[in-house]
């Protein structure tokens, strides 16, 4: 048994609640970090889905010209470089799209509907939308092309906001942890004032005395960090099950890669390191004030 381990008495003042506080902090920080990671990944997925699709809508006051415009548009689209596929949606397809809103059987046969062409884009080469739109305008004056661009912009903004919030939460948690550890260390110093004084007077270096507090708080923080990480892992696994059951393509899939596991493992380690360094600095500063 290393004598250094027992040099500080059990910290009644600071030892009991600190692991729990660290556990809560690590839990929240890990969830925030994984939310940020999930959004980042979903963003990439959404962007791929949306940029590979475009829609051309043809609605005309003269329904008899629509069919002919659709034919012409399809020709232009299929000839354009970068377009992989262009298919007109049948009336049946459109009814199927509307039914979730209107209810099945409620779409009457004479409900006027635009004609839609679904365009699938090839990864390469990039489509020159400007040229394509002007070509379309010549052969199908009532065609409107929708490239989902504003959607993508808005999604990116949303994702970036969520990420900034996640980072902000992690930073706030780190700051709160530092403040709590400073208070806990000061409480520990006050509780062990006699021990500190004796160690100081028999010639203990500041670094030696700080080292005892430092390793004590490191142990507490690691204990709390493991509990927090375990709780966070449980939550994430439950969420992952839940989202994969939902299975919708737009619900972000919680799927954790090895790299992300490293990042999440780094959260309790960072908390432990922060705790240790904070305790050390706090003790060194307070020792510097005595002779």
């Amino acid at each position, binding site marked *: 048994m290393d*004598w250094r381990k027992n040099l500080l*008495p059990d910290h009644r003042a600071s030892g009991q609640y600190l692991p729990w506080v660290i556990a809560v902090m690590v839990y929240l920080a890990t969830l925030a970090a994984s939310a940020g990671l999930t959004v980042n990944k979903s963003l990439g997925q959404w962007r791929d889905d949306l940029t590979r699709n475009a829609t051309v809508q043809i609605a005309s006051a003269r329904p008899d010209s629509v069919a002919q415009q659709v034919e012409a548009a399809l020709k232009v689209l299929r000839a354009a470089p970068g377009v992989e596929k262009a298919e007109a949606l049948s009336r049946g397809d459109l009814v199927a799209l509307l039914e979730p809103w209107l209810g099945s059987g409620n779409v009457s046969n004479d409900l006027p509907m635009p004609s839609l062409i679904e365009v699938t884009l090839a990864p390469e080469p990039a489509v020159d939308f400007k040229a394509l739109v002007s070509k379309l305008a010549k052969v199908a004056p009532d065609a409107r092309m929708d490239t989902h661009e504003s959607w993508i912009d808005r999604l990116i903004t949303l994702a970036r906001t969520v990420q900034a919030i996640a980072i902000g939460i992690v930073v706030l948690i780190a700051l709160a942890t530092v403040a709590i550890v400073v208070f806990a260390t000061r409480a520990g110093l006050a509780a062990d004032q*006699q021990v500190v004084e004796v160690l100081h*007077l*028999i*010639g*203990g270096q500041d670094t*030696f005395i700080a080292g005892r507090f430092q390793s004590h708080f490191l142990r507490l923080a690691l204990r709390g960090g493991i509990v927090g990480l375990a709780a966070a892992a449980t939550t994430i696994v439950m969420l992952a099950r839940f989202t994969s059951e939902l299975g919708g393509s737009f619900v972000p899939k919680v799927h954790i890669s090895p790299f992300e596991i490293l990042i999440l493992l780094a959260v309790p380690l960072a908390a432990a390191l922060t705790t240790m360094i904070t305790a050390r600095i706090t003790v060194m500063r307070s020792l510097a004030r005595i002779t």
Partner: protein
Amino acid sequence: MIRFENVGMRYGMGPEVLRDINFHLRPGSFHFLTGPSGAGKSSLLKLMYLMSRPSRGLITMFGHNMATTPRRKLPALRRRIGVVFQDFHLLDHLSAIDNVALPLRITGFNDEKVVEHAGELLKWVGLAERLQARPATLSGGEKQRVAIARAVIGRPSLLVADEPTGNVDPAMGSRLMHLFQEMNKLGTTVVIATHDVTLLKDVEASVMALENGRLSFLSRR
């Protein structure tokens, strides 16, 4: 080796509790510091064991001017000073032997040897049966002997004791005085503060007296 020149000391903004203290302790000398309670004996010792700083005057310890010695050099100097504190300052959560071992342990000595040495010292002060006892379970006199063992374990150049025989019976008192004399013969400079003048008659030593913060010499050696 230890020199005080025109030293004055006050606590905070209070009055001077030590005034114009001048003395020089040669290596290997033996000194008593007497005076009534409140005269400033403990305060003078605190300056010697580097717990407090003087408010004026010059203190030289082992050739180092204390006014200019940087703080980071003080631990090394403190390790050359053994202190028996008036209220012992034992660590309550450590056993007697762990308390005694502490000064050597923090200097990084081989732990087995340290424990062995601490055990021998405790036997020497008559505590062979109490090695693992916590200070709370020890009598005043036993605590005092643990404190003395801790003060001498590092073979200090200077041994400072504040009323070290205050809690023991006369037989143990003279035994402890004998221990201090042994240390002194090995070359340690000894300074003992006491208001118990009966201690003075058995030992050949210089006697300094404090009265109202002023120092006078009753006998010089």
